[in-house]
């Protein structure tokens, strides 16, 4: 089982704890990762489509040459690439135009066969939950966990294709919490926006969203929240203290990345999953986990 790995900038920049955790977890699971290094940024929904569609087409063409599907560990990279891929697959004339105008210079061509999958989808659809269950060394019993998906793992529909997976994909994280032995502290905003995209345009609204989601999770008694999106993590973890200051209410909720959560159940030590690099202290999670093993 092998993927062209697209880790995204945040997994080594703003959230440097994510990249090594994901690589360790993949290794333990026996998922081979061949990292795409000579490719560009997806545009993250910041740069316009007319610029990013050709850059993403180039990434898909490179993976196609390797004969591998792409695996991401970021909901934003996933969503932006999946939408671009949908446009390129859906409209052969558009794909031809991009190939001719942008990729032909390098002798590249995107034929429209590359799949882009987030690690969360890979676990359920390619790897198999039974196989994952057989490798659990530390069932996370007694931990209460809130799911937080990040918009692009749920919407828009063309980013979630194939359509038959759409509804089930909306609950993978909920299912995973149970599979890893933890208890779910469900929140109403688990599929909503974390506020990150408007941090520079309207910080107040952005922080209000952080306070709403993390506050509700805390009220439901969660030990932590888990997210497959490092941009959500940047806001929910990195700006939680600002959100506390804005609302005047203490929250103090650790936010874990998806691979860290899986890694703990696979028996990794919290240090190996780099929990100490988070802004909100994970000490309580660490002590509960260490009592389990």
């Amino acid at each position, binding site marked *: 089982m092998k993927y062209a790995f697209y880790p995204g900038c945040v997994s080594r*920049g703003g959230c440097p704890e994510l990249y090594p955790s994901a690589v360790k977890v993949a290794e333990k699971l026996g998922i081979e990762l061949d990292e795409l290094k000579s490719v560009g940024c997806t545009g993250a929904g910041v740069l316009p489509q007319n610029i990013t569609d050709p850059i993403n087409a180039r990434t898909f063409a490179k993976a196609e040459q390797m004969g591998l599907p792409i695996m991401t560990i970021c909901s934003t990279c996933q969503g932006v690439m999946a939408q671009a891929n949908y446009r390129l697959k859906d409209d052969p004339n558009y794909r031809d135009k991009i190939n001719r105008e942008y990729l032909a210079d390098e002798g590249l061509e995107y034929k429209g066969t590359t799949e882009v999958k987030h690690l969360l989808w890979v676990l359920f659809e390619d790897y198999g939950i039974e196989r994952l269950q057989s490798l659990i060394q530390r069932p996370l019993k007694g931990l209460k966990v809130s799911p937080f998906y990040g918009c692009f793992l749920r*919407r828009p529909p063309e980013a979630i294709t194939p359509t038959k997976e759409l509804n089930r994909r909306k609950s993978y994280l909920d299912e995973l919490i149970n599979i890893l032995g933890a208890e779910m502290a469900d929140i109403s905003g688990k599929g909503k926006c974390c506020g990150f995209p408007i941090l520079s345009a309207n910080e107040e609204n952005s922080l209000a969203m952080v306070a709403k989601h993390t506050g509700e999770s805390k009220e439901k008694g969660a030990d932590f929240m888990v997210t497959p999106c490092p941009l959500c993590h940047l806001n929910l973890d990195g700006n939680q203290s600002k959100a506390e200051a804005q609302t005047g209410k203490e929250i103090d909720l650790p936010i874990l990345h998806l691979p860290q959560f899986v890694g703990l159940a696979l028996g990794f030590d919290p240090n190996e999953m780099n929990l100490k690099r988070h802004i909100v202290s994970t000490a309580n999670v660490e002590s509960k986990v260490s009592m389990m093993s």
Partner: protein
Amino acid sequence: MQITFKVYRKDPEKDGKPGRSNYTVDLPDGATVLDGLLKIRDEIDSSLAFRASCLRGTCGDCMVRVNNSARLTCTAKVSAYTQKGPEISLDPLRNVPVNKDLVFDWDTFMWNKIKAVKPWLEGSETADGENIVPDAAMADLRKVMSCYQCGMCDEGCTVLPVDFNFLGPAALTKADRLAFDPRNKASREQVKIVEKPKGIWDCVHCYEADEHCPRNIEPTKRIVALRDKAFNSGISHEAVARHHASFAASVKESGWLDEGRLAVESEGLTNVKGLMKLLPTAAKALSRGKAPIPYMHAKRPDADKIKKIFEKAEQEEK
């Protein structure tokens, strides 16, 4: 079948305090929620206030929250809401002043916001007074023109519950319809109006609005198109312009994003107060060994090739 409707009540002419009335009515299979409301008003309580107009899902007037999700009562089948039991709750929309019962203030909810985007076209002067455009130029726009302003997208919006002054997807979709009209000579001005605070840059592009639109107009994609248009012709919102220019520059120069650089350049390199604001977060991140250091960013292999694509795409748009 016997259905009990639990309906939100508020009468400004009495005490104005919100409450709830329960009405049980017998409805045939295939009945809609609106059939239930009409029956209640005709047979049980003539004081119950609600709106409805076209009765066929094309005007949007009858939108209320059915079991906590916004629906047009004229197309919402009762059977879809009674699987857990023969009870249905009906409420006015969230965050909007209520006039009476299920009737809420549409001016506050949507019309004032639509007025704010300058919802008319400034056509070019022509000799014969006509402004003919080829059919193909209107193809995509025709879909947006089918919006009947029901407001379901605003109800689904993620930003409005935290900030009701946000213009919202309905008004921004109206702005898109005008900004992309080939007859509009003030197209760039149209975009600038919605670039002001509370406009397109306040949208989180979460695509909730698209899920709520009953006509598949995809309001989020319209907002994204307005943002792309603004980017390609020079963003007029100062903070966003700094942020996007820095993002573009680092992708163009290195193939990927220099997050440290983005943080400082978004504030503005000469904005001492703004940069000071970053310090507490940066200090905390540094203490955890995770603050990306600005301008210490390695180029991706093939960065030159990515730059070439980037510049060609920019050129093409001009």
